[in-house]
């Protein structure tokens, strides 16, 4: 019984109750749809039919959950020490930039060397993208929320510049993308779907996140900073160093998501490699209360909404924005709920 009680610890219960409250968002958006003369029940049925009704839909849910999980950990890790990283979108693109540089520069390497090198570049690119705002915070006291938001615009524009300028495929008939990566730079996909090896990166990141926070001194000190920064500072925990590390590791994981998107899904760098994965990943982390298991659940839930969003667009002519409205309302509900404060305050 004691073991059972521990399993159903407060956090898990909180998650379940929040999931129930998320239903409220569907009611509100339902009313909104009725206002615009649309049938909400039809829309919801189509979302779940499109995402879970076919094996293709279900596989696409996993495909989208991969970058969402990585970007969510990118937000969750710094969040556990009280930092708000809204930059996974930019860090994902920074990783993609570094990977593309590698793929276009070392085109002739054998696969067992090439792929790990590209993984390393993805990690590095994303880490740099997050290290900059972390350094600004530590050295100059710049709020990381604002700096990561601003950097998102900068890095995405840099991608636009590169794919339309220096890296443009000469054979592309003016389409904005780089040449296709060599086969040795492509991640494996499985079971005839688009599910790719990035899944292992994402699951490894979640496990690592869980074990580090739970069982290492590093994770313990990180959580102490999050609970009480003043006490942590007085106890001699180097908050600046933790800020740099937590942000950089988080950014590295978002960069890895970028690597997986271009090396598995796209096969080249082009604008729109991410349909807001970074921002949605940020939401996943907050909806999951920055908890590893919750991140898996929420990434799949938002993956369902994302695939379903495409589906209502195609079959009902409803805007994709419908699912974004649902997601942001759930975010509000989580933020406003008492459970959240009891769990993380």
């Amino acid at each position: 019984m004691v073991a059972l009680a521990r399993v159903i610890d407060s956090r898990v219960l909180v998650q379940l109750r929040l999931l129930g409250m998320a239903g409220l968002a569907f009611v509100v958006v339902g009313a909104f749809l009725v206002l615009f003369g649309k049938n909400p029940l039809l829309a919801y049925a189509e979302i779940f039919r499109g995402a879970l009704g076919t094996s293709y839909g279900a596989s696409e849910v996993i495909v989208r959950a991969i970058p969402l999980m990585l970007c969510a950990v990118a937000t969750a890790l710094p969040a556990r020490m009280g930092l708000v990283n809204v930059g996974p979108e930019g860090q994902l693109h920074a990783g993609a930039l570094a990977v593309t540089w590698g793929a276009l520069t070392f085109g002739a390497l054998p696969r067992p060397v090439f792929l790990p090198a590209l993984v390393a570049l993805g990690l590095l690119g994303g880490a740099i993208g997050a290290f900059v705002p972390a350094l600004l915070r530590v050295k100059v006291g710049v709020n990381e929320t604002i700096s990561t938001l601003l950097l998102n615009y900068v890095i995405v524009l840099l991608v636009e510049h590169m794919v339309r300028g220096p890296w443009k495929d000469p054979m592309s008939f003016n389409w904005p993308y780089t040449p296709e990566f060599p086969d040795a730079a492509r991640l494996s996909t499985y079971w005839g779907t688009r599910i790719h090896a990035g899944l292992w990166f994402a699951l490894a990141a979640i496990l690592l996140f869980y074990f580090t926070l739970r069982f290492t001194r590093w994770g313990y000190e990180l959580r102490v900073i999050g609970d009480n920064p003043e006490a942590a500072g007085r106890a001699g925990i180097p908050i600046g160093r933790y800020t740099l590390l937590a942000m950089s590791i988080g950014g590295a994981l978002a960069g890895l998501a970028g690597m997986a998107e271009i090396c598995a899904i796209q096969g080249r760098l082009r604008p729109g490699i991410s349909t807001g994965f970074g921002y949605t990943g940020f939401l996943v982390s907050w909806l999951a209360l920055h908890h590893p298991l919750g991140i898996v659940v929420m990434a799949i839930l938002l993956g369902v909404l994302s695939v379903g969003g495409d589906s209502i667009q195609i079959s009902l002519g409803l805007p994709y924005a419908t699912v974004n409205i649902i997601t942001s309302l759930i975010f509000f509900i989580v933020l406003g709920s008492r459970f959240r404060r009891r769990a993380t305050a």
Partner: protein
Amino acid sequence: MLGLLYAVVGGGIRAGTPILYATLGEVIAERAGIVNLGVEGAILAGACAGFITTAHTQNPWLGIAAAALAGGAASLVHAFMVVTLRANQIASGLALMFLCLGVTSFVGRPYVAVKINAVPQLAIPGLSDIPVVGGLFFQHDALVYGAYLLAPLIWIVLTFTKWGLALRAVGERPDVAFAAGLSPAAIQYAAVVAGGILAGLAGAHLSLAYARSWVEGMSNGRGFIAVALVIFATWHPLRSVVGALVFGAVFALQLQIQARGVALSPYFLDMTPYLLTLAGLLLWGRTRRYAMPEALKSVFEGVT
């Protein structure tokens, strides 16, 4: 060269207008101790509501009213979240941004290529006939004059009136304000909603005067730039004007460089406002801290 200067100054005043509205709105909210990153969303709400109203009525004045209303209503959500439910200010502001982005792209979709009656130009009689100066400063639309007149007005209200004193007291020490018989919650609600109304006007100027069209996500980070500008401006309405003009000039210069076919990547040009904002934070992030309302310190600096 003179033509360029003329275009940058005149264009800067115009392009600086939405940024000034948003910055002034954020100054009011932050002086009352509430950070609202949702300004980005409130601008979108204003731009979209204003555009749709104008498209249906062909009356830009009704559009402006609708924009103010929409911006205020959007920010009311933030006020409810952070004042009544005591939710995290940063997170609630971001939630508001996501919500507005979603709702406006849903509601605004049928209006993407629609043409509207823009806010008319209003030449100030007499003054607009002055050579050079007249054309630069006195031949704009009403929203432009409104923004630059509001800045001193807000400064006067914040500095010299009972209301302004109460608002600032709440932003510095809510507990002391409460002990003095003020209602911090009511004042913070009023400040956040007033800020949202101004953000709505920022949106109105974007869609009804500046771009004269509706595009999904057209605020493009101007709300976040405004939040940063409030810091450079040391939470001061008059210094906000300087910041807004500088950023307006950057936007105007960007258009001029593109229009003159200078061989510079347009994507680099598009980066400049964000990079400039980051550079400003880098230079002044710490030195301007002295002016930060006391109650904001815990919001901006949860971890030091």
